[in-house]
Structure formats: structure tokens, C-alpha cells
């Protein structure tokens, strides 16, 4: 069957260049990638402790980086509480 998909221009240029270097048609490369992806075992929910630990470590490191330049003032939780209360009578 035929399927039409949209991909970013820059990605398509890279795919076209690499497939040309390897002497393969883009259709052939695409089909190969789809077949390999379908054959992959699904990632189990909650995966391994190691993977979950890495996810948490990355998230906390990113949070520290994002929060480093936060100005003084109410905490993010204060903002959240205020958001959730905004319709209540003052």
C-alpha cells in the first residue's frame, strides 16, 4: 500500500544523502527501519530500576539547572496552589 508521511526538510535531506551514499532507495531504507522497529520488544512499563533511576537523576539535574536562575519569590508550589484557587471567593 502507499502511505504519505511528512518529515522535516533537514531530516529528509540527511536521509537522502545517506541512502545515496549507501546506494539504497529511500523506500528500501524506510521499509527496513519499519520492520526492525516493529520487531523490537516493547519497553515494559516501569522498566528496570536502573532505567528509572537514570530517568529520575536526569529529571532532577534538569530541574536544578532550570531553577538555578529563578528569581526570589513564591515557590512553584505556591504558584500551583494559587492557580488552583483562582476561582474561589477572596
Amino acid at each position, binding site marked *: 500500500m502507499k502511505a504519505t508521511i511528512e518529515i522535516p526538510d533537514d531530516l529528509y535531506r540527511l536521509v537522502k544523502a545517506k541512502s545515496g551514499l549507501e546506494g539504497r532507495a529511500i523506500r528500501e531504507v524506510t521499509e527496513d527501519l519499519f520492520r526492525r522497529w516493529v520487531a523490537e520488544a516493547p*519497553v515494559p*512499563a*516501569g*522498566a528496570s*530500576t536502573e*532505567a*528509572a*533511576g*537514570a*530517568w*529520575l537523576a*536526569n*529529571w*532532577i539535574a*534538569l*530541574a*536544578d*539547572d*532550570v*531553577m538555578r*536562575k*529563578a*528569581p526570589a*519569590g*513564591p*515557590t*512553584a*508550589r505556591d*504558584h*500551583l*496552589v494559587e*492557580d*488552583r*484557587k483562582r476561582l474561589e471567593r477572596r
Partner: protein
Amino acid sequence: MPGVAVDSSVWVAAADPADRFCAASRAFFTAVVRHRSSIHIPAFAHVEVACAIARRTRDGSGARRLAQAMLAVGPVEEVATDRALLARALLAGTTAFLRGADALFVAATQATGATLVSWNDELVQRGGAVTPSDWMAANP
């Protein structure tokens, strides 16, 4: 071990070192990972978290990256905010007199059979939630 549904209050507290519950929230997530529990959130939660972080930091780009990282490959599972979840939220919220966003967390908790964890007093008092500290005490 059954999963946990984690309210936005715990996420933003864990993200913000200036929050008095930051250390406890990070310790909670560490314990959840150690117990190999899945983490459930209603599908709008990352938006709520990102907006609170953006308002705190005035850094929208950073807040979006943090929200996307919540959903990166890891233990977090989103619960779709479909008609079924909204029906549950409608019933839970109007029965326990919850705020709308809180009702969606209660609904996601019911839908997954998880334990709801929150720093929000109303969710603890009327929504069946436990605090991160209480969850850790019950799950050493």
C-alpha cells in the same frame, strides 16, 4: 507493588530547591523508583507542572524541557483525559467537593488502582491522598 498517582504539587516541590518539601519530594521519587512502582498522572499534569515552573522561573523554555523530561522513557504513565476519566472526575469532584484539577487526579487514581500522593491538604483530607512522607513511612 501497586503504582502511585503523583499530584502536581509533588512534582513542582521536587523541582524547586526553594520549596520546603523539595527534599522530601525527591526522597519520595527515589523510593518509588527503588520499589519499581509505576507513576501515573492524568495527561494534563505535565502542562500544569510546566506552567507553575514557568511562572516561578520566568523561563518558558526550561519549563517545557522539564515537562517533556517527566514523560521521557521512565516509570511515568499518562492516563488519557478521555470521556471515561472525565466522568469519574465529575463524580469524584462533586461528591468530595474538590477543585476540578484535583478531581482529575482522583479519577486517574481510581482508574489505575494506584495510591494518590500529594502535598495538597484538600486532596489528603477529602480525596484519599497521602503525603509523600506518609507513603515512604508505609513503604520502607
